[in-house]
């Protein structure tokens, strides 16, 4: 097999953790992830329980992070919202990566498919991401699954473009020629020789897409064209809190901080992965 060092490399975690910023990011993201997964057990209250008496109670009183306009506990909502926001980010990253790899491999490997697929990728990438996502959600409807589908359509071309570029280089390398001479089929060359060598750039890009998709979801929810407003996400929380910005800034402060921490840590992890997986790419960008 012709793979260079990939994710199985035992030194990966160690080299990731060698950079203090990446280590901190890994810890922060693990905490956010754990909070989201454990929300039903660690949340102090149900995210939907209303209490008239608690309306807009400020933070650090009876409620650690305050209560919203319906008297719902902000901390509990924040924890549950994290589940949805992270799920949308992860779902988008997984689907767009899987589909992007198939399209990118096809474009890079089969010369006949290259021109039409590449032009299609160019055309998809001409639409600004939020705008295309808005249009897709408008047409498909605002369920969590449809938001994931819409964002996956938006981000698939990015993966496809990277996979195509890498495949174009790899398919000319001697070991691919050798495999072909030994009678390997196209499918097995792609699976056993090309795919292992594009794992690094794809993993890095998937991490960034995870981050972008979370930002985009927040943007869609803020605009009121994302998931159903009754589902708490960090974006819908900011959108709801907006009306009370003069009395209760904390309603938008905490979800905003949560998104920023999640996205920042993912971006730092992506940068760290890029440096660790492919030292040739480790530039100071």
């Amino acid at each position, binding site marked *: 097999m012709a793979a260079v060092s990939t994710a199985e490399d035992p030194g990966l975690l160690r080299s990731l953790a060698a950079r203090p910023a990446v280590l901190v990011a890994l810890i922060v993201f693990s905490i956010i992830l754990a909070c989201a997964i454990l929300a039903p057990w660690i949340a102090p209250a149900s995210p939907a329980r209303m209490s008239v008496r608690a309306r807009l109670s400020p933070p650090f009183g009876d409620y650690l992070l305050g209560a919203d306009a319906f008297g719902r506990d902000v901390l509990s909502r924040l924890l549950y919202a994290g589940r949805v926001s992270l799920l949308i980010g992860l779902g988008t990253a997984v689907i767009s990566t899987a589909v992007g790899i198939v399209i990118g491999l096809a474009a890079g490997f089969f010369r006949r498919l290259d021109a039409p697929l590449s*032009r299609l990728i160019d*055309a998809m990438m001409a639409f600004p991401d939020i705008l295309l996502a808005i*249009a897709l959600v408008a047409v498909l*409807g605002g369920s969590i699954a449809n938001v994931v589908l819409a964002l996956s359509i938006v981000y698939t071309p990015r993966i496809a473009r990277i996979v195509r570029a890498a495949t174009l280089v790899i398919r000319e390398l001697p070991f691919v020629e050798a495999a072909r001479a030994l009678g390997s089929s196209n499918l097995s060359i792609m699976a056993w020789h090309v795919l292992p060598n594009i794992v690094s750039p794809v993993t890095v890009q998937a991490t960034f897409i995870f981050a972008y998709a979370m930002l985009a979801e927040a943007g869609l929810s*803020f605009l009121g064209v994302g998931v159903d407003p009754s589902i708490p996400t960090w974006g819908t929380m900011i959108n709801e809190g907006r009306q009370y910005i003069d009395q209760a800034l904390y309603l938008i402060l905490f979800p*905003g901080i949560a998104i920023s921490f999640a996205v920042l840590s993912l971006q730092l992890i992506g940068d760290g992965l890029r440096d660790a997986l492919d030292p040739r790419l480790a530039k100071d960008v």
Partner: protein
Amino acid sequence: MRNYILKRLFGMVVVVFLVLTIAFVLVRLAPGDPAALMLGPDATPADTAALRARLGLDQPILIQYVTFIGHALRGDLGRSLFFNEPVLSVLAHRAEPTAFLALFSLLFSVAIAVPIGIFVAYRRGTVADQTAVSGAMLAASVPSFWTGLILQRWLATDLGWFPASGYGGPDASFLDRMGYLILPSFVLGIVNSALILRFCRASMLDVLGEDYIRTARSKGMSESRVVLRHALKNAAIPIVTVIGLTFALLVSGAVVTERVFNIPGMGNLVVGAVLRRDYPVIQGTLIVVATLYILINLGVDLLYLLIDRRVRY
């Protein structure tokens, strides 16, 4: 070179054609009848049938496609269901604030990012450098609408330095209207400056390591002259590319920022169109924005020819 330009123009025509096709398919992805969706649950079957006929949805799909492309090529992107006006004229009425918002925020982000990027590339590895790089990453991680809401509350509502929202009344002068865009442009500019700063710093670092920079220094040329005359000129290409690419970011950001500051631009129009199920407006905006993006990137590529004499296609 003429061949290159012709090839690029041909490629552009193909991509614009695909953009039109995607916009055509997109509206038809709707589960069920688009006409029924647009009119909402209260519509009578007769209304729905009338709208289907008006939009040509009763025709075979191939005829619909050919008609759509034919109209689009003549600049007819259909009529808005809500405004009952041609989509292009609805968009044209909303273009001014969006165009100036995008332009000002681009100017803000270039003014912030390019000098800082050059400076920290020159002082690579110092505290200033690390601060700038981390700051850029943070700016790219914070949702722009969130920054917008916080700055709006602080600088406009509390301190009263800027108008909090809107775009002046119908009688507002041009300068008044532009005054409403200062804070929104700044907010959007911060987000975009992150990308420009990272690119600017990286391309300066590449250039500063080149032999001709060492030669210039050994000739006894002053440092400011080395950086500004020799290095910046050669680092300009990647910087110009990224400025072209941020157009898409600017438009996405403008959609959200207009909502925060309640600016009656194309972003607010699209969001309103989604809530009103005004599909022709959504479709038209996508087509116009994507075509602009394609034209701007073509312009950027051609600009290379002017900036760098070494580039020969």
